[in-house]
Every structure is written in structure tokens, then in C-alpha cells.
């Protein structure tokens, strides 16, 4: 048991437990804050996976933008606590049985799936002795993935237009 394994086990336990608390908490503010805890742990998990740039992006975009947006909406629409605790999906026991079957299937074939691991052919290899992870990401992002990068920019622009359009039209009606 070395330090890598200990850190991974702590991060995995913290992420699972905080996301579980996020989906069972009745107050939406608490749920959003538990998701924030999960995202901070996941940022450190990305750091242990060798990408310091994605750690920064995860903290800035998720914890800084998305979660703040969630909290903003929660405070804006002034939710009450959920009193009823009705099961939304009826006959969920059948689904649970099917879920157990798929879980058995997953763990039975996990060794087969991960035996493919060394056979992954690296299409875009990188060498950390030649430069940092950020340097390699930038090099491939602006050459191989340039079109996808532009598409993401267009999608975010359309999202801004969509949000403004949806909330502006309501003002004219009401």
C-alpha cells in the first residue's frame, strides 16, 4: 500500500460519499455545496492523473462558474424544502434487479475490458520529458483538434444567446 493508492482511495471515497449526500439531501443549497465538495476532490484526482491544466480548468469552470450559477438559481427561485419523499419511479424493484444483473456483468468482464489497456494504440503520444502537459495539450489542441475547439466556442455563444432569448421573451409576455 503506497501513497498513490492511499490518496486514490481517499479521493474515491470522498467523491462517492459527497455525491451520494448530494442526491439525498433535501435542501437544494446543501446538495449544490456537496457537489462542490465532489468537484474539488475531482480536481485533485485530475492532478494525480498528471494534468495540472485540467485541474485549473476544473476549479475555474466548475467551481467558479457552474456551481455559482446553480447557487444563483437556487436563491433566485426561492425553493422550499421538499416535504414529501415519494418515490418518483414506480416498480423500481424490477429496475434494481436489472441493475444487479448488469453490475454482475460489469465485474465479470472488467478484467477483459482492462486487458485491452496496453493494446490502446496511442494516436497522439506525448512525452513529459519534452515539455509539460500543458505544452502538449496546447500543441495538439491548436493543430489536431482545432475544429472541435471552434465548435465548442460556437456552442457556448449559442448558449448565451439562448439564455438571454428565453428570459427576455418571458418579460414581454408577462
Amino acid at each position, binding site marked *: 500500500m503506497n501513497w498513490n493508492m492511499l490518496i486514490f482511495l481517499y479521493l474515491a471515497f470522498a467523491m462517492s460519499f459527497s455525491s451520494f449526500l448530494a*442526491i439525498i439531501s433535501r435542501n437544494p443549497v446543501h446538495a449544490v455545496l456537496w457537489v462542490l465538495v465532489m468537484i474539488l476532490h475531482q480536481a485533485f*484526482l*485530475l492532478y494525480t*492523473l498528471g494534468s495540472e491544466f485540467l485541474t485549473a480548468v*476544473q476549479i475555474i469552470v*466548475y467551481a467558479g462558474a457552474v456551481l455559482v450559477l446553480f447557487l444563483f438559481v437556487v436563491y433566485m427561485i426561492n425553493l422550499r424544502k421538499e416535504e414529501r419523499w415519494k418515490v418518483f419511479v414506480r416498480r423500481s424493484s424490477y429496475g434494481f434487479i436489472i441493475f444487479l444483473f448488469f453490475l454482475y456483468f460489469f465485474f465479470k468482464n472488467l478484467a477483459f475490458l482492462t486487458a485491452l489497456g496496453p493494446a490502446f494504440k496511442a494516436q*497522439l*503520444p506525448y512525452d513529459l520529458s519534452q515539455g509539460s502537459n500543458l505544452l502538449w495539450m496546447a500543441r495538439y489542441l491548436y493543430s489536431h483538434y482545432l475544429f472541435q475547439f471552434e465548435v465548442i466556442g460556437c456552442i457556448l455563444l449559442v448558449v448565451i444567446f439562448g439564455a438571454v432569448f428565453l428570459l427576455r421573451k418571458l418579460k414581454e409576455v408577462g
Partner: protein
Amino acid sequence: MVPFEYYVTLSLILFVIGLAGVLFRRNIIILLASLEIIMNALIVLFAAISFHAKDISGYLIVFFLIGMAAAEAGVGLSLAVLLYKKLKKVYVDEINFYRG
């Protein structure tokens, strides 16, 4: 070095927790937060694949996924605000606006 199976199992656990949140919760805000948890499961999986295969593509896909998650949260939350302003409801089983 942590084996690859552990990352796949962590990703599966997060995906199942997020799916349970989508299926069993009625509050639309928590439903969107559960979608974020599902996105985070994908992020863990792609980053682990990229780390173990020594390939940069997984990290780039994680970068695009974070952008997509931001876009999804923007659209979803604006629709949630629209629903609340129109119907004064945020629980998805009470929204039966289109039932004939």
C-alpha cells in the same frame, strides 16, 4: 501506480449515483446537479484512459467535456427559471403542462 480497474469502478459508481439522482429526485435543480455528477464520471474515465495509454486525446476530450457541461448547465438552468416563472413549480412530477 493505481490500476486502471479502480478508475473504471470509480467512474461506474459515480455514474450510478448520478443516474439514481436523475431517476429518483423530483427537484429540477438537483436533477441538473445529478447530470453534472454523470459528466464528472465521464471526466474521470477519459482522464484515466489518457493517463494509462500515454495518449493526449483523453485530456483534450476532458477539456471539451468541461465546456459542454458549462453549456448544459446554462441551458438547463435557464429552462428551470423559465418553468418556475411560468408555472411556479420546480418539481418534475407536478409539471404536467402538456398532458391533454
